[in-house]
């Protein structure tokens, strides 16, 4: 399966599960209708924040190596 196919299959599965929770065919674990409706948006926002934090951390820890440049001053 290509990565695109994996994402589509996973995405469609999640949408089906979410829709079935919304219409009551699957258990809602005490969440209100409004909460269920906005759950996907909330999850996307949380993921976006995590990705941004990861990027910031990776840029912060991206090592500079002046010693490597000094080595080449032949």
């Amino acid at each position, binding site marked *: 399966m290509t*990565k695109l196919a994996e994402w589509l299959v996973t995405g469609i599965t999640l949408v089906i599960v979410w829709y079935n929770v919304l219409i009551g065919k699957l258990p809602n674990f005490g969440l209100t209708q409004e909460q269920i409706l906005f759950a996907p948006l909330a999850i996307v926002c949380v993921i976006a924040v995590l990705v941004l934090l990861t990027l910031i951390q990776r840029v912060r820890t991206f090592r500079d190596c002046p010693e490597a440049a000094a080595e080449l001053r032949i």
Partner: protein
Amino acid sequence: MPMYSILLPTYNEKENLPIIIWLIDQTMTKHDYNYEVIIIDDGSPDGTLEVARQLQSIYGSDKIVLRPREKKLGLGTAYIHGLKHASGEFIIIMDADLSHHPKFIPQFIKLQAEKDLDVVTGTRYVNGGGVYGWDLKRKVVSRGANLLTQILLRPGVSDLTGSFRLYKKEVLGTLVKSCVSKGYVFQMEMMVRARQNSFSIGEVPITFVDRFYGESKLGANEISGFVKGLLYLFATT
């Protein structure tokens, strides 16, 4: 004793070429490794090929092999061209502009031998690796592109666009035939296809000294080319 063929595609490197050849020779001789350097010059107007000939007379034609081409024909075909004349069981690819230091080659060789790996790739992003000469913007673009690639492709390799690598000869041959992309994306595609073929991959932290950032721009063209290539790999692998 295995032989290591180092493929060095060159374009206008007449000043760096003697330095990198000297560094390669120093490193490989110190560790007692059998090697040859295959210089693939793409018709450099600055006389790189003439410098290569002089280096050949200094180091010997068993150590310096010349396989020039008439014009710039791209990296993938340069590797194919160089491979045809490589007598080593292992192929090392690296940049000729001193952004990659040959001192890391023994670490690639040791890791490959320890675990019988099909591919060893240098990484700038893992502990011990790093870059010199990049400002904040360049670092953000590099890490951002890499993060996007990790999310979409989950390649199992930390640095996909690097071009400092060691391959088993037959593995490089297989991969280079199946890759269609160019530039950064070509190097990414090589790793992704290596995973598809279940080749074993190891990583060595390396330092990348960019002396040309400022001259080379990471413009809209390069960025759009990268995104297109990433989407192509996302949809087809």
